[in-house]
Structures are given as structure tokens and as C-alpha cells.
């Protein structure tokens, strides 16, 4: 029995899985209409954007020395605006009135996706350069990017939100492969890929080493600066992918899209057992953390609870998750 418990506790995802099960069980018993396939699918779909961002942010946090990306929400905003502006002809873009009906021109959509992700990676690269080459603290560097990218989104779009994207793009946000919504499938696929990279490749090992002890890694001849820059680029890319999902799901591009999402994504990473100290953590936990965040929003809407009650509850749950994680570490390192 004790060894079984110990085995379970050796997984850093154990606390978040436990929390998800507890909340889901309570909701299943007490909240009518909670345990329906459609509702559970909704919860997963609603978590996809934050989940995908959280994968990137987890890598940044693992990179250590206060690694954090506050700009992910703003990068999401600017990259999704760039995507929409590539697709929508300028004369239609200024027409704020209509729900646009746009043709499925695959070449244009492809170009838009490339630009969108390119902008995300470029912003991420600037973050990485400020951290690795200039030596700014990640908090400051990405805070600057957060303001700059949001301002850029407002400037290039003239502050105008647009409605209506080509149906093939909306498919990515709203349709399902068998029973799994495309955003959820994408989130799971990206999480599995990054998980394998993090645990099974040299790059992943060196990232964990850089995060664990930067000086030692440098003395061992690792490319510390290159590794640092790469995680910010990946984080920017994933923020852009989150932007594609968010726009496609809501069929809209908005210059203010994704405000505050970076904090949800950071919460998701922490809930999933990633240490803010760097050097340890996992992306599967981060995705589960994102699922947990939409899971607790759901009964609030279902039971029609006033919103003011929810935020203190969320704060408390984050603390509980971290305490559980610390307890787990003590148990599994043990005795």
C-alpha cells in the first residue's frame, strides 16, 4: 500500500490529477447537467488556448533564474491580428458593421498562418535576446514586450475588432475529429510532442540542466544562451498558435484578445507541478492545470453563482495545489 502510494506520488502530475478528480466528482454529484458529454467537451475546448500557451510558458519557467513570460497574452493578440489582417482585404477590414463572409482561399490562409506564427516567434526571439544577450531579468524583458506587443496590436488594427473568418479556419476552432474537438486534439498533440522532447532528447535534458544550475551547465560546455533564446521563441510560437485557436473558436480577431491569459497560463503551469525556481516541471501537468481552470469556471456558470465568489476560490485552489505539490515532493524524495 505504502509503496503504491509512493509510486503515485513520484509523478509530478499527481496533485493536479487528484484536484481534477475531486472537483469533477463533487460537480458530478451536486451540479445537474455537469456530467454530460457535451459539457465535458465544452470544458476541454475552453481550456485549449490557455493550455497551449501554458506548454510554452512551462518551458520558460523551467529555464530558471526567474524565467517567466508575461508577454504571451499580448503576443497572442498581435499575432492573431496579423493573421486576420492578412486574410481580410483592407477595405473590408474597416467595415466594422458586418459579420464578414470570406472565401476559403487556402494560399491566403496558409500565408496568414505563417505570418501569424512568424510574428509570435519574432516577439519570442526579442524576449530571448533581451534575457540571454542583454541580460535583463525575464520579468522586466517580457513586461516590456507585453506593453509593446499590445500597443502594436492596437496600432496596426486601428483598434478595430472584426467578425467572421473563412470557414476552413473556423473549422480549426469549432469542429471535431470524431468526438475530440480540434483545439483539444491540437493541445494534446503539442503537449505529447513537447513532453517527449523534454524528457527524451538532448535538448530537453540540457534545458532541465540549464534551469537547474546555469553556471554548471555553462562550465560543462552547454550552449546556455542558445537554449534560453529557444524557449522564448517556442513560447512566442505557442502563444501565436493559441491566438489561431482563440480567433477560430470565437470567429473573430480582436486587438484586446488574450489580455490576462498569460496569468492563467502561468497558474496552469504552477498547478501542474512546475517549480517557479526552474529546473523541474512538465508540460502534461500544465495542460491539466489549464483544464482544471476551466473546470472550476464551469459549475459557476451552471449553478449561476455570482462571479465575485469565484476569484477567491481560484486563489485558494492555487495555493492548495502548490502545498500538495510540496507535500508530494517531501514524500517521494522521502525519509
Amino acid at each position, binding site marked *: 500500500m505504502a509503496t503504491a502510494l509512493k509510486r503515485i506520488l513520484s509523478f509530478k502530475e499527481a496533485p493536479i490529477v487528484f484536484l481534477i478528480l475531486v472537483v469533477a466528482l463533487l460537480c458530478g454529484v451536486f451540479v445537474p447537467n455537469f456530467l454530460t458529454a457535451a459539457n465535458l467537451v465544452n470544458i476541454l475546448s475552453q481550456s485549449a488556448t490557455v493550455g497551449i500557451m501554458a506548454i510554452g510558458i512551462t518551458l520558460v519557467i523551467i529555464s530558471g533564474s526567474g524565467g517567466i513570460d508575461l508577454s504571451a497574452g499580448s503576443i497572442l493578440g498581435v499575432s492573431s491580428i496579423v493573421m486576420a489582417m492578412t486574410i481580410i482585404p483592407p477595405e473590408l477590414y474597416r467595415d466594422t458593421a458586418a459579420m464578414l463572409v470570406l472565401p476559403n482561399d487556402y494560399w491566403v490562409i496558409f500565408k496568414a498562418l505563417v505570418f501569424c506564427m512568424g510574428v509570435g516567434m519574432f516577439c519570442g526571439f526579442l524576449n530571448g535576446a533581451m534575457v540571454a544577450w542583454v541580460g535583463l531579468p525575464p520579468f522586466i524583458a517580457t513586461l516590456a514586450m507585453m506593453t509593446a506587443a499590445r500597443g502594436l496590436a*492596437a496600432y496596426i488594427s486601428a*483598434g478595430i475588432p472584426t467578425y467572421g473568418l473563412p470557414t476552413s479556419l473556423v473549422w480549426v476552432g469549432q469542429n471535431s475529429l470524431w468526438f475530440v474537438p480540434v483545439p483539444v486534439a491540437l493541445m494534446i498533440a503539442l503537449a505529447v510532442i513537447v513532453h517527449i522532447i523534454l524528457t527524451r532528447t538532448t535538448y530537453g535534458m540540457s534545458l532541465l540542466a540549464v534551469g537547474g544550475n546555469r553556471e554548471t551547465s555553462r562550465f560543462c560546455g552547454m550552449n546556455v544562451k542558445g537554449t534560453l533564446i529557444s524557449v522564448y521563441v517556442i513560447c512566442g510560437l505557442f502563444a501565436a498558435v493559441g491566438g489561431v485557436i482563440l480567433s477560430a473558436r470565437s470567429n473573430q480577431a480582436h486587438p*484586446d*484578445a488574450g489580455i490576462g491569459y498569460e496569468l492563467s497560463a502561468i497558474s496552469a503551469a504552477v498547478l501542474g507541478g512546475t517549480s517557479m525556481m526552474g529546473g523541474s516541471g512538465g508540460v502534461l501537468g500544465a495542460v491539466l492545470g489549464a483544464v482544471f481552470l476551466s473546470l472550476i469556471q464551469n459549475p459557476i*456558470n451552471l449553478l449561476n453563482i455570482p462571479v465575485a465568489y469565484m476569484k477567491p476560490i481560484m486563489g485558494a485552489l492555487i495555493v492548495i495545489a502548490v502545498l500538495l505539490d510540496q507535500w508530494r515532493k517531501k514524500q517521494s524524495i522521502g525519509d
Partner: protein
Amino acid sequence: MLKSVLKLCFAAIAVNILFAAAFAGQPRVAVVVKTLTGDVFQLKMAEAARDKAIELGADATIYQAGGQTAVQRMVQIIEDLITQQVDVIVISPLDSKAVVPVFQQAKEEGVIIVCMDQVAEGDDYVTFISTDNYAAAALGAEFAKEQLGGKGKVLVVEGAPGSSVGDDRKNGFKDTIVKDSRIEVVGSQSGYWTNERAMAAMENMLQANPGVDLVFSCSDGMTGGILEAIKLAGKEGRIKVISFDGSSFGIELIKEGKIIADVAQFPIKIGQMAAEIGIGVFNGTVDPASLPKFIDSGTKLITAENADESLADAF
């Protein structure tokens, strides 16, 4: 080096004095709003106020706090405007309490303050021009009652928590729709004035209340997301939607048959009236003592019947 710097300074001062002389007697008007980003209502209101002020011979500029919750930035802007000794501030306060001290300071300095869309506490402003949000939402509720034949289940998607405008709309709708009817408000949740969060709230509420007949959206800015949620739940055409704002976007949705009504506000009228009154008080043609503390800029229910004509003066 020093000499050329000094020269430059003198030149700058001279230019400043010249400009000040050229604009003497011309009121300086500052239009202060929350944000122009993603908020067509604020944009049109601010532009209308500025353009009206310029038309009346004033020197007018728009300042934006840069966010729906950038309270501190707005306070700083007002402080700077007092230092620059502007004559009239036409403002949409972000927070009814936070601006009170700077409003007092401005009033002591003789600056004329006109509030539009949102109000501040105290009585340091000459008047407040806005839609009567409670009454306007009640107008939407009356129409909803008629459409539902006096019975059914409705949902409300609210604005951001703590927004007085959002609360007025929500309460105006809820209070009116349940009065003398067998209509029940089965869910009322915040969409935080944003599309994607309105969509998530709507999706979740539809799970709890699959048999709902009508939804009231507290802003056109959230209606796109609500419609996506209804479409994804496969209930398109079975749930009636009433929205609030009367933007061209909302009216187009009525024409497409996606929503049944939109309660209109008139941001352009609000902005123009605010500028007119501010400059009137400055010129002495309007007596601030005779002004009511609240001026209703009016409202109108837009349905399929009057959608086309309403589009002409919509924002």
C-alpha cells in the same frame, strides 16, 4: 554647443508664446476616454466630442487611458491637464470614485468638467450625459415579453462585474421581464465585455439550461460570441437574442435575422452634447446652475421593422 542649445530653447519658448497668443480666447477642450481600442462606442463618442468642439471654434484633443481598467492612468491624465490649464474636460470616467479628488482639484482651478456615458461621485462636474441604461434595458425586456407571449426561460450575459453601466442594464432587463409574466431568468453570468468570455459563459449556461427561449446580451461587443455558442450547441434559430448598443454591427445582425432586436444608444449624440454644453458654460451662454445633473441622451428599440432607417445614424 551650449549656445545652440540655449538658442533652441528660446526658439521653442517663442513658438509657444506665439501659439498661445494665436489661440487666446479660444477654449482648450480635452476629451478623455477609457480606450479607443476595440471599443467602437468610445471611439465614436470621443471623435464626435472632439469634432463638435472644433466646429464650435475650440482647440480639442482626445486622450485615452489605454484600457477598460486603466484607472490610475486616467487620473494622471487629468492631473496633467490641470497643469496645462485646459478650460474644458469632457470625460468618460473609468471609476466613479477614483477620479473624485482630481475632479475637485480641477474644479478649484476653474476647469469645466462634463461627464459622458459614465458618471463620477460628488458634484464637481456640471452635468452627466448618458443613456438611461436601466430604462433602455427595460425597453428590451418589454419587447422580449411580447415575443415570448409572457412565458418562457431567459438567460442574461452581463458586463464586467462592478461596472455600473452593466449592472443597470442587467437589472433593468431582469426586473422588467419577470414583472407580470411567467418568464423566469434561469441564468445570469458575466461575459466581462469580451467576446470569447461571453462565448464560454453562454456555452456553459446552455448546458445547464438547454430549453432556454431567449438571451439578453448587455453589449453588442459580446453578441458575436453568444451567437457562436448558440450555433455550436446546435440551437440556431431556436433561441432568440436581444442585444444592447445599436451599433451598425448589431443592426446588420438584425437584418440577417440572427438577432431579433437591439436597444440603441447614441454615442455620437452624447459626445456632441457634452462638447456643446462644456463650451457653452465656458462662453457663458449656458448657466451651469440651471443644468440638470443628468441628461438622458435617449434610446430606441431597433427591430427588423426599423433596421434599415436606423442604420443611417448608427455608430
